[in-house]
């Protein structure tokens, strides 16, 4: 029988302890990054990391990538807005720098947590964790705290007004990961998503600003009694305000509280349930009591002009057609 000398044992112990500190960490790092990216040498990677996407900012603009965007006023611009949108599982961090405006002359730069369109806000006042006045960050009111803002969902906006001809500012957009997104605006008219609400008493909306056909593929709510299959015609039955349910809304604005519910589901579903919503804005809304972990998966695709549901004669004036 071979006995291991104590010195060897000690060395073995030291090696096993230090193995975690050396090369293994480098391997972990490489795994985390993009596949192609890991083939670059260290110098090339450093060059790529310094690279920040830059372009000029327009008066009316839409941003969906990270980067630094500089606005320079060649003439007075009195009503400008920048819409910023990210992936559903991201939130947006905004930072203002090199700001050269005249607050006393009526210039302002305000960052808003959400989107405002035609006076309506997304997410609505009821769905947003902050009070209405807290969603605005005004650069002119407090220049220290007024130059950064972080959104609570994947959309944000910047409103600004600049009178002076040579004034301007730089807006830096960064995206941060959000593991349980609630209140999402979809960037595209087609796709799929799974919304999960783990033991939180929140109402979450997934908004698609297109007329779409929505198919719910999976629904798991707290109060499921069984997994029995329900025949197609009984799928869209009314839920009498029970704690956890999914509702589909349709409307012509972005505020979900001003939209019309077209269907609701309050039992778990393992089959397919689909609906065509011929509205400018189609929303899937998950209402959670906080007692359960709720999950809803759905797919959506754009409705072509000839596929739009026909409006019935008795429909409300402002309401869009649904099928």
């Amino acid at each position, binding site marked *: 029988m071979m006995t291991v000398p104590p010195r060897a044992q000690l060395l073995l112990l030291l090696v096993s302890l230090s193995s975690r500190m050396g090369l293994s960490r480098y391997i972990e790092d490489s795994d985390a990054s993009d596949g*192609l*990216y890991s*083939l*670059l040498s260290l110098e*090339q990677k450093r060059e*790529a990391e310094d690279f920040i*996407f830059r372009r000029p900012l327009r008066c*009316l*603009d*839409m*941003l*969906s*990538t990270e980067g630094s965007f500089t606005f320079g006023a060649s003439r007075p611009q009195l*009503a400008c*807005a920048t*819409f910023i*949108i990210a992936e559903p599982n991201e939130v947006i961090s905004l930072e203002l720098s090199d700001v050269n405006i005249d607050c006393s002359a009526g210039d302002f730069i*305000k960052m*808003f947590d959400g989107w*405002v*369109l*035609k*006076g*309506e*806000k997304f997410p609505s*006042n009821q769905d947003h964790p902050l*009070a*209405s*006045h*807290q969603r*605005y960050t005004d650069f002119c009111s407090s220049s220290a705290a007024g130059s950064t803002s972080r959104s609570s969902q994947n959309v944000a906006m910047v*409103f600004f007004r600049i009178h002076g001809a040579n004034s301007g500012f730089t807006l830096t957009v960064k995206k941060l990961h959000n593991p349980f997104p609630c209140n999402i605006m979809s*960037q*595209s008219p087609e796709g799929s998503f799974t919304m999960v609400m783990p033991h939180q008493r929140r109402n979450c909306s997934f908004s698609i*600003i*297109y007329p779409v056909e929505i198919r719910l593929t999976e629904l798991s709510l707290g109060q499921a009694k069984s997994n029995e299959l329900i025949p197609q015609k009984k799928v869209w039955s009314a839920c009498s305000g029970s704690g956890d349910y999914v509702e589909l809304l349709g409307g*012509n604005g972005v505020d979900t509280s001003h939209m019309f519910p077209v269907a609701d589901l309050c039992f778990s579903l393992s089959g397919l349930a689909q609906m065509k919503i011929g509205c*400018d*804005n189609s929303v899937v809304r998950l209402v959670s009591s906080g007692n359960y972990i709720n999950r809803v998966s759905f797919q959506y695709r754009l409705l072509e002009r000839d596929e739009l549901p026909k409006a019935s004669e008795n429909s409300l004036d402002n309401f869009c057609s649904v099928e």
Partner: protein
Amino acid sequence: MRVEFSFTVALLQVSTVVSVLLRRRIKGQGMCWDTSSFLCRRMKSWSVLLLLSLLLLSPPLARPSSSAPPSLLSLLDSPLALHLLRLLDRRQEEVEARSRDDGGEEGAFRGRRDEPPPISIDLTFHLLRRMMHMDKMESQREQALVNRRIMDEVGK
């Protein structure tokens, strides 16, 4: 006694009218709905205090029990005084509650009234969709450029 009683009643009536007028004037200016207006809260409290002090300082109402002038404490037992004190108390509570829930749930109603119309842009959905589409095309072009750069580097 009769003279005293009528004098007291007249004094009370005058003070009530004065306090109501004060409140009306303030309400008319819209100050009382603004919780940040400290002056408004003060004025409301003052009107009640004025009433109370006039009541206490005025000749006592006819009391069947004793002929001696009653003490100030016993005056506070009178139902009118108690009612005024309760009113003052409630006002204080309201004021404290308002200052506590500045941005809270209770302020939802008040918020809607006070809230200035949001800065908004009147963009149609059609234009918004076009902007999103154009931006997506642009970001795809940028990503293609970055990918080409990486591929060029890797290929060397």
